[in-house]
């Protein structure tokens, strides 16, 4: 598992190190994603700040209202007190009492609102003390008035202490008001600034995302254009390649024809001097016989004249020389004929027809029956897959192969030859000729397919043509031949042919 992860990481880092379209796109998309996240975050912060701001403003206003309320209650209380002092009517006292009863609640609210605000708190404390003192002054005058000393009570009002206290409170409240107003203004400025910042960040991010999108579009477009160009280039190269292949094939066919023509001409022109060598060798032989007869006559009629050396020369040396010349020329003629045959075979126009291989190979096996029976050998032909090909070539090939198998059986054991075959997956057919004959040494596995080359003990007639011819033939049909063999154990020849031979205009496999 961890190995897998490491593997993935390695692949990923390799991906990152390699400049590619994928890497560029991934980079740009990551960047865009980061930008969006930043915008998101900024917006979040902004919303938080706005909420905070709203709350602050709310408190500012409430502080201002509460402070005013405190003053209002005191003014109400003062109004009630003064009415009572002036008129002595009890209903004014009710107004006063109500205001005095409400004052602590209003004061408490102001306390609560400013609990965590030392700057305002200080003023609220002072305000509370002033209010208490003011109430005390009021109470004193009312108490005096109640006890019938109205003059003393008015005197207290006249002293002006109450007005002083009220003015001081008004100052405090104005101060609180100012503080809260200033705060409100600064908060609003902050809020406006952060709103602008948010808008700015949003706008910037928007522009960046648009730019990234533009870059991505440009990269993709460029990539597509490059692909298109590469595609055209590939088409062009392919077209060129086809032309080149055609040219080369043409060259090869011409070269092949040239070689065949060359072989044909050479073998003809080589035969002409051979005819002379052979003919005049015979003439010499004839002449030798004439001389021999003449010598025989001399021998009987005048033995003294007879030289022993001359007799040996005429009766032994000359016939021996002639014998070697003749054997060599005959061999040379066979070799030339072999080249001629190969060259002719190479020029033969192939045909293509469906062939029942089991029947064809069976017939060839029957034709060697008398040889195999004499040697106590057996040829077994399994059910063979058929093919469409050149009948004559295939007959010659299998004839050669079976002849060879019979020819090179090991006399020490009963010969077993088996021919089997199978269809291969790639549109080819494979046939195997398996024998338990004398086998072929490793170093000769290539050589045996060469012209005039033979392997092992040279105890069988032949010029080393068969396999060269077979290979040539199989190659012409687009097939191949190989050998598997161990010396002294047997050989297996593996022949492959296309299931269907297509013959082109010039009669070769295509």
């Amino acid at each position: 598992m961890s190995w897998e992860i490491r593997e993935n990481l390695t692949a990923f880092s390799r991906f990152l190190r390699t400049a590619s379209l994928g890497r560029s796109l991934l980079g740009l998309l990551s960047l865009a994603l980061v930008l969006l996240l930043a915008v998101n975050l900024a917006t979040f912060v902004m919303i938080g700040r706005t909420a905070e701001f709203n709350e602050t403003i709310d408190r500012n206003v409430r502080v201002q209202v509460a402070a005013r309320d405190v003053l209002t209650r005191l003014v109400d209380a003062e109004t009630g007190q003064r009415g009572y002092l002036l008129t002595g009517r009890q209903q004014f006292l009710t107004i006063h009492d109500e205001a005095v009863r409400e004052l602590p609640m209003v004061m408490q609210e102001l306390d609560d609102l400013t609990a965590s605000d030392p700057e305002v708190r200080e003023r609220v404390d002072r305000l509370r003390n002033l209010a208490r003192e003011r109430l005390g002054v009021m109470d004193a005058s009312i108490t005096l008035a109640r006890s019938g000393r109205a003059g003393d009570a008015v005197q207290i009002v006249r002293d002006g202490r109450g007005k002083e206290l009220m003015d001081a409170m008004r100052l405090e409240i104005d101060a609180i008001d100012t503080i809260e107003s200033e705060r409100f203004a600064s908060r609003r400025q902050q809020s406006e600034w952060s709103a602008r910042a948010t808008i700015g960040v949003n706008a910037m991010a928007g522009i960046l995302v648009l730019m990234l999108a533009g870059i991505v579009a440009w990269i993709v477009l460029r990539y597509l254009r490059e692909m298109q160009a590469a595609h055209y280039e590939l088409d062009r190269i392919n077209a060129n390649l086809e032309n080149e292949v055609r040219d080369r094939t043409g060259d090869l066919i011409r070269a092949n024809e040239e070689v065949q023509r060359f072989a044909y001409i050479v073998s003809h022109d080589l035969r002409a001097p051979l005819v002379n060598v052979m003919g005049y060798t015979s003439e010499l032989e004839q002449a030798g016989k004439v001389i021999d007869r003449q010598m025989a006559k001399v021998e009987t009629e005048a033995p003294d004249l007879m030289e022993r050396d001359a007799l040996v020369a005429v009766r032994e040396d000359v016939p021996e020389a002639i014998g070697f010349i003749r054997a060599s020329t005959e061999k040379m003629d066979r070799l030339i004929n072999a080249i001629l045959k190969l060259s002719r075979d190479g020029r033969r126009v192939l045909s293509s027809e469906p062939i029942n291989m089991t029947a064809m190979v069976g017939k060839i096996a029957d034709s060697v029956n008398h040889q195999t029976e004499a040697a106590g050998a057996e040829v077994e032909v399994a059910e063979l897959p058929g093919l469409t090909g050149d009948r004559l070539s295939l007959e010659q090939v299998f004839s050669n192969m079976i002849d060879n198998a019979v020819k090179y059986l090991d006399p020490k054991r009963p010969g077993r030859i088996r021919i089997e075959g199978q269809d291969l997956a790639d549109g080819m057919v494979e046939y195997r000729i398996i024998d338990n004959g004398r086998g072929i040494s490793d170093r000769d596995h290539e050589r045996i397919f060469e012209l005039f080359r033979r392997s092992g003990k040279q105890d069988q007639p032949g010029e080393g043509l068969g396999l060269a011819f077979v290979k040539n033939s199989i190659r012409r049909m687009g097939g191949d031949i190989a050998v598997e063999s161990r010396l002294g154990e047997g050989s297996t020849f593996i022949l492959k042919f296309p299931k269907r031979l297509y013959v082109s205009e010039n009669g070769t496999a295509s």
Partner: protein
Amino acid sequence: MTTPVKIVMIEDDHGHARLIEKNIRRANISNAIEHFADGTSALEHLFSEAVLTNGPLLILLDLNLPDMSGTDILEKIKSDARLRRAPVVILTTTDDKAEIQRCYDLGCNVYITKPVEYESFSEAIRQLGLFLSVIQAPEID
């Protein structure tokens, strides 16, 4: 009264020419033999007035000549109104079936492959000798 058949041998290889001649002589044929080593001089001779008016002919023709192909000569002979009746024996190293067929198509009378085995060659020439002694080459008018 018949004039003896004259043999015209067109053969570029002097060795072959000599061997053929020897074998013809050995087969007891004593007709005059005229030898040409190339196609041009042979045609010149064959188409000269003297030859055309002078008795029957038998032509021995080699196919591989330096200056032209034997089949060209054969074609010329067989397309001439007077020479076409002269029997033509092709003597060549080629045993190519297509070529043999072509020679017969062009009107050659006998096709002999020069074999390297001398015995069969001599045999062929001897048979040619027999052939020569048996046939009555038609008169050329």
